[in-house]
């Protein structure tokens, strides 16, 4: 009798626990017709255009928005999209005229106001938009987004709506390539619904791109469907895309092998050796506007003293880039020979071989230079990186082994992992680095300016090592003010040579985008931002 009561109690408590397991999830939308599925992971921020600073959110924005300009998926060149013309005489005052006939997928017309409102929203401090600084060139930015204190204006004084199809932009300085930056997602137009019912818009964003969002289950999947009435020339050639959220890129890859997924745009490093045989050639590996470098802490006198540039150059020469990109990355990276990216093309300012001998593997030269420069500070360098994403550990270990072998000292270089990206950024922000650290740069727009100014200009937002050179700054200012594109690019290249001579950062390699796809798909390509060109894919 007594025992029975014990059992009852135990069973009762167990029942409470089990009850929690009852409810199930929702079903998956199976891909039908020429709808295909592609791998995705959760965007880190709400899907607002000016608040999306990583590639996963960027993928969606690229499908549901079209801006004034669009970067050609092949050449990366900024082409007019909604802009009929962008006129300027002085590189500071711009008059933008829109093409007629564009609407949002909810029927609302895209007008000059759609842009001006969107840009004002993105710039305004109170909206916490992480890409607000993109509007920093527009006059009045310091009023709507002061560095400290409250904002004294709600809208940018440099933006004026002239009529439905025209607006003017006044910049606070000359910036000749300003029109070419307008393909960036932050400059997308926004419909009224974004402002009037923000929560509903976020739950199911509405834009003016070739796709519309059919359904969005956060954390699981987003179903995008072709927008039949899309007015642009780049209509979707498939009926839609189901973006499936994967916890891990390797799982997505395995699902592709098993036939449950059509497109994987991030082939895991461990599968690169067998990817060609696994997928029977349905694999692409194409250059993207990403460069990996080693940055240095110039706030540390060991790295800013005269002669340290020889040590930095010596380290650069001690890294066998070719071997590492072939062995560790299986040619999904290309040894870097300048500080930009091949996707710019020679015309855009990429100059292969600019780095010269300093980027060639030369153990003897490396030893000599390090010695001439006064040796490694403290006899050892540590390369700091974050261990929570990418396969950083592998290449840092390989770089260190290469340096150790070249310098003939098995403890000359050691990797220093930091647990999380946030902590890594924290330590960088608080100037805690004592040696080189990982620095990766994915371009916002395909301009040489974007590879140099944010990274090396005095106190620029991504100048993590606090490198500063007056000559470099002057050249960048001059290049920005230059109205002739070719002369502007040439001046930027002159500035890049300053970076080279000082070895401000050691260029490692250019990163490619890689993707694998199923037999159903054809015409798969990646754009220079390593995002699949979804609208051109044909699904069988």
């Amino acid at each position, binding site marked *: 009798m007594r025992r029975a009561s014990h059992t009852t109690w135990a069973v009762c408590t167990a029942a409470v626990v089990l009850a929690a397991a009852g409810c199930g999830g929702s079903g998956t939308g199976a891909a039908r017709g020429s709808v295909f599925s592609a791998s995705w992971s959760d965007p880190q921020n709400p899907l607002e255009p000016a608040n999306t600073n990583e590639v996963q959110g960027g993928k969606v924005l690229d499908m549901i928005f079209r801006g004034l300009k669009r970067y050609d998926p092949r050449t990366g060149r900024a082409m007019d999209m909604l802009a009929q013309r962008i006129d300027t005489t002085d590189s500071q005052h711009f008059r933008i005229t829109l093409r007629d006939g564009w609407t949002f997928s909810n029927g609302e017309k895209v007008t000059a106001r759609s842009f001006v409102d969107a840009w004002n929203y993105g710039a305004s401090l109170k909206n916490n938009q992480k890409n607000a600084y993109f509007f920093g060139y527009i006059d009045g930015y310091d009023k709507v987004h002061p560095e400290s204190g409250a904002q004294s204006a709600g809208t940018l004084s440099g933006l004026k709506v002239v009529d439905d199809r025209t607006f003017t932009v006044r910049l606070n300085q000359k910036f000749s390539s300003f029109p070419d930056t307008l393909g960036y997602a932050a400059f997308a137009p926004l419909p009224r619904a974004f402002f009037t019912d923000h929560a509903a818009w976020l739950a199911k964003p509405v834009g003016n791109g070739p796709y519309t969002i059919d359904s969005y289950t956060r954390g699981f999947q987003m179903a995008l469907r072709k927008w039949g009435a899309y007015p642009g020339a780049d209509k979707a050639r498939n009926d839609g895309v189901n973006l499936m959220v994967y916890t891990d890129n*390797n799982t997505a890859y395995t699902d592709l092998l098993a036939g449950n997924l059509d497109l994987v745009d991030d082939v*895991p*490093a*461990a*599968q690169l*050796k*067998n990817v060609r045989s696994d997928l029977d050639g349905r694999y692409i590996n194409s250059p993207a506007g990403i460069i990996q470098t080693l940055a240095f802490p110039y706030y540390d006198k060991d790295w800013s003293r005269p002669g340290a540039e020889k040590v930095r150059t010596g380290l650069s020469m001690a890294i*066998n880039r070719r*071997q*590492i990109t072939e*062995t*560790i990355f299986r040619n999904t990276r290309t040894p870097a020979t300048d500080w930009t990216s091949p996707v710019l093309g020679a015309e855009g300012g990429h100059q292969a071989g600019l780095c010269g001998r300093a980027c060639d593997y030369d153990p003897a030269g490396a030893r000599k230079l390090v010695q001439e420069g006064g040796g490694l500070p403290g006899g050892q360098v540590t390369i700091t990186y*974050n*261990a*929570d994403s990418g396969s950083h*550990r*592998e290449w840092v*270990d*390989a770089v*260190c*082994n*290469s340096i*150790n*072998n070249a310098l003939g000292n*098995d*403890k000359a270089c*050691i*990797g*220093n*992992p*930091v*647990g*999380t990206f946030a*902590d890594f950024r924290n330590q960088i922000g608080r100037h805690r680095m004592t040696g080189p650290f990982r620095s990766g740069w994915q371009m916002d727009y395909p301009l040489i300016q974007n590879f140099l100014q944010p990274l090396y200009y005095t106190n620029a937002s991504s100048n993590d090592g606090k490198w500063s050179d007056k000559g470099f700054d002057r050249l960048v200012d001059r290049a920005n003010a230059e109205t002739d594109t070719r002369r502007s690019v040439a001046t930027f290249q002159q500035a890049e040579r300053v970076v080279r001579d000082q070895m401000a950062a050691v260029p490692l390699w250019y990163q490619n985008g890689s993707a694998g796809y199923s037999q159903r798909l054809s015409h798969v390509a990646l754009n220079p931002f390593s995002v699949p060109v979804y609208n051109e894919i044909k699904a069988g």
Partner: protein
Amino acid sequence: MPEQHEPDGAVSAAGMGGAMDLAAAEAATLERTPGGPGGAGPRGRPRSLWSDAWRDLRRNPVFLGSALVILFLVLISLWPSLITSGNPLTCDLAKAQEGSQPGHPFGFDGQGCDVYTRTVYGARASVTVGVCATLGVAVLGSVLGGLAGFFGGLGDAVLSRLTDVFFAIPVVLGGLVLLSVVTSNTVWPVVGFMVLLGWPQISRIARGAVITARQNDYVQAARALGASPARILLRHIAPNAVAPVIVVATIALGTYIALEATLSYLGVGLKPPSVSWGIDISAASPYIRNAPHALLWPSGALAITVLAFIMLGDAVRDALDPRLR
């Protein structure tokens, strides 16, 4: 919390009769086996359980075999150069993932390091982490769990709830928080971390085992005869509650060595240039399809170590069980 069925008065009543002959009580419970030919204990004093166990162990081939393996592991941990002349930090990327070849019997890993040399050198960190963390966890866990299970009451309640809290701390969070502030690149912070987060597991097991053992007739008898709580715990309960602790601890030894890999993977465990099986196993794991050998050897070394300790634990446990004699 579970409490003794009979009134607490029993303990104090027994306590008053503390002058009773304890040896007799022990003889009643433990000396079931007739004194064997090797009965070396001094005359007049009963042989202790522990010395009995030791006598058994010395003749047990399983014990001797596993002790030999462990001795070997200790030797190469102290002097890895006894069996390899290589340097675990000398790696040539050109040889990455290559298989076995003369002079390099185990082949090369993804960085082109010699797997044999690294496996030998990895023993030191891995065996130290495994053994020290296990010892720490076992001692702390069984002492706390044993006391809680034996005495019950408020102490038990507090300790049990404390283990609930500790169990709930995710290892990843604990590691990132507690180990990221440590700058020392030795195994000790890692060991300390494992002990801190690992003791509740053993504590639970020990508490449960003690609660069961406490009910046994011979414990009641010893208590009635006035044995002190310390004596009851050590002489009568511990030997009967130690089995599950040994089982869990010997398996945990392997999981601690593996956990060290997880911590290294998170960037908070052992950092380069440290060499350990865990680091090598986690580095080789994703490449299982291309270079299984780089995973096989450090994993094999880990398996042999765990096997030796499991067999050792089994032998010790058998030796401590008077009913098996």
